[in-house]
């Protein structure tokens, strides 16, 4: 039975790949469930952002948008799987920029972010910033910089791992302000938070720290985003603090395997933009400290290129190595 099912599926895949999609079929898209591949295990930030999207998309399209978690190798396994999926408009990649503009600058990936995928839409940016443990002393961003300058090498920060945005953001800050903070890599941000709360490390930059800021256990120094977080209206952005071009965005997005019919990616993008502008999605995103910027597929491709170059420069300047 499993064998027959497999043969059936293989047959369908071959048929879908071999026949060019007619305009009529693209117009009917989606007429069966759509798969969103997430390159990480359930329960993380990617899952957190993908859930509201799959729920709302399933509702507006009348077809299930199913999440498939393919974790492993820092996101490489799931991203590679998505790059090799049949480009028929029924499999998409839902990923943070880590797999698209960071990882390829650090190691050889079995996919090319620019060539293996077609851009579809932006799904949300994380709006968070640097926090510091209250036992250190500094109460705001300026005091932190002064403290770090007066005590070089005394502060340390936790990251979710080598080459993650949580490391890149602090390296960028060190690079821009000339301060010295020791990097301590962890296995994921929950692990890093574990050592931040008792003050074993003193700084971090992730969304999972924000509830602890609300509880008064950590101090939020700034926001790494073009606008403030509405839940922390008094905390300024880095640009407002006079540190320009220092944001390292953490952004989530939809991608299609290269060769997916343009009618489908365009229709999908239009729906994503429409939803992102709606109050329902704005509210859902705010609840998880995210905002959705609106971009066309072409703008998104250019943005990926820009982001990748910025990360490449930073990786070189901060001497981040994986292999």
């Amino acid at each position: 039975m499993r064998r027959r099912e497999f043969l059936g599926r293989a047959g369908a895949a071959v048929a879908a790949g071999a026949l060019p999609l007619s305009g009529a079929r693209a117009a009917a898209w989606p007429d069966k469930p759509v798969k969103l591949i997430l390159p990480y295990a359930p329960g993380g930030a990617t899952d957190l952002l993908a859930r509201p999207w799959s729920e709302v998309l399933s509702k507006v399209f009348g077809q299930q948008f199913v999440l498939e978690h393919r974790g492993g190798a820092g996101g490489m396994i799931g991203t590679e799987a998505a790059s090799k999926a049949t480009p028929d408009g029924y499999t998409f990649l839902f990923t943070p920029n880590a797999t698209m503009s960071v990882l390829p600058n650090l190691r050889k990936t079995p996919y090319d972010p620019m060539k293996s995928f077609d851009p579809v839409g932006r799904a949300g940016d994380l709006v968070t910033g640097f926090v510091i443990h209250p036992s250190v002393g500094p109460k705001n961003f300026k005091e932190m910089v002064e403290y770090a300058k007066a005590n070089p090498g005394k502060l340390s920060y936790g990251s979710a791992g080598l080459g993650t945005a949580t490391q890149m953001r602090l390296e960028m800050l060190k690079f821009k302000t000339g301060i010295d903070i020791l990097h301590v890599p962890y296995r994921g941000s929950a692990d890093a938070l574990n050592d931040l709360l008792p003050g074993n490390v003193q700084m971090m930059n992730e969304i999972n720290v924000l509830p602890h800021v609300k509880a008064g256990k950590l101090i939020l120094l700034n926001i790494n985003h073009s606008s403030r977080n509405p839940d922390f209206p008094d905390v300024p952005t880095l640009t407002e603090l006079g540190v320009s071009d220092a944001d390292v965005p953490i952004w989530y997005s939809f991608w299609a395997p290269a060769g997916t019919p343009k009618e489908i990616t365009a229709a999908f993008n239009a729906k994503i933009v429409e939803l992102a502008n709606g109050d329902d999605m704005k509210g859902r995103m705010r609840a998880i400290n995210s905002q959705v910027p609106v971009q066309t597929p072409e703008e998104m491709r250019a943005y990926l290129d820009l982001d990748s170059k910025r990360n490449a420069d930073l990786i070189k300047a901060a001497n981040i190595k994986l292999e």
Partner: protein
Amino acid sequence: MDVFSNLALGFSVAVSPINLFWCFMGAFIGTAIGVLPGVGPVATMALLLPVTYFLTPEGALIMLAGIYYGAQYGGSTTAILVNVPGEASSVVTALDGYAMARQGRAGPALAIAAIGSFIAGCFATVLIVIAAPPLTRMAQQFAPADYFSLMLLGLTLAVVMASGSIVKAIGMIFLGMLLGLVGTDVNTGNTRFTFGISDLFDGVGFVIVAMGLFGIGEIIKNLGDPERRDLVSSKIEGLMPTREDLRRSAMPIARGTILGSFLGILPGGGGVLGSFSSYSLEKKLSKTPENFGKGMIEGVAGPEAANNAAAQTSFIPMLTLGIPSNAVMAMMIGGMMIHGIVPGPQIMEQKPGLFWGMIASMWIGNLMLLVLNLPLIGMWVKMLLVPYRLLAIAIFFFCAVGVYSLNNLNTELYFMAFFGLLGYAFIRLGCEPAPLLLGYLLGPLMEVYMRRAMLLSRGDPMVFLERPLSLTFLIIAAVALILVILPNIRKARQEAFQE
């Protein structure tokens, strides 16, 4: 008092018919799937996480928690009946529980496991209510250096308590540590022992190793070992424990409960450390330590109580700090996030109904499990009478489904097959796989904590001796090691194990 108003609120949430129903469903599904050999709570929760999407947050978390302790009851059941621990903390249960089953005393072993777990569960629930805030503050005092020393102590105790050759035990621990190091190094990003296979970049999964070594390996051995069937199905006398059984189990359950409650709070510790520590403690306190591994009821009662107590108290850092202390708690956090709840210290204040309701449901769930399991023990025991050649296929099937459901990767099935063969080889060579699993779990954590401690101390190794907690753990480990190495004690120990 606060405690009572909190509990009252919790019970008002937990006993609402719909939540009572989810609690029952969780406990029942958990037990049923946990009973299936080779599928432990993590795999079960991973499989059922998508289902909770359709429930209220309270219902979802109550059911997930139910699956967890339900699967643990079930996991102990398979450990006792077929020597396949559903998860790491049941490894110890299998030692004496399975020996009891082979002597025809599967019933009392299962009953004592259920009773011990229930008592520990009740105690741990009360403990969470009363002591969550101060205990969390204590666990928070742990720095990387303290974790390192604690894990060193854990591994040392694993060597001390291993039956048979010390050399083989140490060898297995080191082999386990090497296995645990496969994958990407956290500090440098180098990939180690991966042979360029990208499916190995994140290491070899715990479920794969456990299912392979304990599930598949055991099946191969049993299939090639026809006389074993007769031994197990020979005669099963009396399902209920005797008065003597209860008397012998009372103190181990009490000690295991306290030990497990404490260890469960430590992130990374949890049920595994609890059950292993309790077993070695009972062995040390026993007048007849040489009988451990041969069907001592104390070796089932203590670790089962410790395991369940730790399972429940490990909710403390998760609920109060949002920190997962083990893979199961990571699943619980996943369950919260599905509903848009960000775990953290704000939950207790912002969602008191959810927080206290879940805690109250733990007690109700444990009661349900006791009611559910004691009458059903007869049914579990009957499972032994299923012809092994059929049971073997079922175990194979569920191991394969369980492993594949984790990451949808074919390669992981091959890895499991490899560990199955390795497990069989170990059995033939007389090497216990339990120390390997402990080395596999604790080795990489120890490495990470050691390097982190050194990084934070800016390269000064004295950090391990300067922190009082760390120093205490190191001293205990050293004493334990010296005791085993001393010539006359070693001789006595060898004689004890040869009997």
